């Protein structure tokens, strides 16, 4: 069999796996970016020492543990504190003053992964005197990453980079004020998480659950095709109060999406405000 035929078969196998996940467990990855799906699935095939995607499909159908592995593979959990510091600088300078005008504030952090950006946000809110007025809803499709996020404990070797990010983001204090170092780990101040609710939420099928003043969803939309991007952005748009704010990844864009007309850009980082009257 030649390589092109093998490629064709592999693509069929991938489709069948995605369909099987949907039929068996109800998780819908059909509108995820194909290159992303394929790369992550082939990586899993290799890690589990399997011959091909079909073998993985068979194992997944009978064994929920294999499904959980695949779910972890497909939700990218690469993140860091104050990632792309300019974004947090813009949040501090452009968004916090707006939030201060509200008596109570709902923030939805969608696709929060292991929680590093949630803690970053909490630190920012604390320094701006807003933390007590805020409810943060941090959601992810994946239970395992939420369990890590709830703990707020991370490997200490990351902290050096995070300290730099924090300073670049305009942080004026000592970053070490926010964690205790113990057994090669940084244990973050639990008070930062006291107004945070961690929830399982699947952006593809779950609906609105709050009126949000601010939604943060960074580097999640890039894994969706255009159709699903629009669907999820419409969900965000409906969840935001008029004048509400959305922050997305530095290489993501509302241009060419179905909600573009309803938002205006308010910062150099990818931060948009929902127009009043929309």
């Amino acid at each position: 069999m030649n390589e092109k035929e093998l490629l064709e078969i592999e693509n069929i196998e991938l489709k069948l796996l995605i369909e099987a996940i949907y039929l068996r467990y109800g998780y819908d990855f059909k509108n995820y970016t194909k290159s992303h799906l394929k790369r992550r699935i082939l990586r899993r095939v290799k890690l589990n020492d399997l011959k091909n995607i079909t073998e993985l499909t068979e194992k997944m159908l009978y064994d929920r543990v294999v499904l959980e592995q695949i779910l972890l593979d497909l939700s990218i959990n690469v993140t860091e504190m104050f990632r792309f510091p300019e974004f947090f600088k813009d949040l501090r300078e452009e968004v916090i003053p707006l939030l201060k005008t509200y008596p109570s504030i709902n923030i939805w952090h969608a696709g929060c992964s292991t929680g590093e950006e949630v803690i970053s946000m909490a630190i920012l809110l604390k320094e701006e005197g807003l933390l007590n007025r805020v409810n943060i809803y941090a959601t992810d499709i994946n239970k395992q990453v939420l369990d890590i996020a709830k703990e707020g404990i991370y490997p200490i070797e990351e902290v050096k980079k995070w300290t730099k990010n924090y300073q670049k983001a305009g942080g004026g204090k000592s970053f070490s004020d926010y964690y205790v170092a113990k057994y090669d780990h940084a244990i973050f101040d639990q008070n930062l998480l006291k107004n945070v609710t961690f929830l399982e939420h699947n952006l593809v099928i779950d609906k609105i659950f709050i009126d949000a003043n601010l939604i943060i969803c960074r580097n999640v939309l890039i894994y969706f095709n255009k159709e699903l991007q629009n669907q999820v952005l419409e969900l965000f748009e409906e969840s935001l109060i008029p004048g509400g704010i959305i922050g997305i990844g530095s290489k993501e864009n509302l241009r060419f999406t179905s909600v573009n007309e309803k938002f205006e850009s308010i910062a150099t980082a990818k931060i948009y405000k929902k127009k009043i009257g929309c």
Partner: protein
Amino acid sequence: MKYKAIVIGTSAGGIEALKIVLKDLEPTIELPIIIVIHIKERTDGFSKIYENLNKLTIKEAEDKEEIKNGVIYFAPSNYHLSIEDDYTFSLSVEEKVNYSRPSIDILFKSAAEVYTDNLLGIILTGANSDGALGIEKINKLGGKCIVQDSEEAYFDTMPRAALKYVSTCDVMSLDSINRYIKKIGGNNCE
């Protein structure tokens, strides 16, 4: 062979090498040139480095952007770049591959699957082995590969690694690669 796209991967020494490879290209070129270079994040962008080098549009590839002929695209710093079946780009921030993000292997493999035997893959100077598996995939699916002559390369690790995986790659100097692109650009045939 009729080419529909060129992918180029390079690392250390790549900025200067690309200045020769991309020199004086004409906008009539009937294919896109898509490049991964390992480089620290730059605020001035890639078009700034290469402005006045040729008459093509030089830009950073955007997520879901449609790939157009006669444009030179660079993978954004810190994002992997892939090509989808409908000739659009997609970005990803998953873990580094070969210590690199963007990774040449990721671009090359996805491009190979979309363009199969209409793809030209080029590996230039670099001090690691990213791109070797990508070149292997391009070769398997019928595409052509060119590797910078390691005698001339600023760092020869990357060209040598590619040749280790596909010994049949053409070995060329930067000037010859430039001439070759101009030649196939004109009528888009070898």
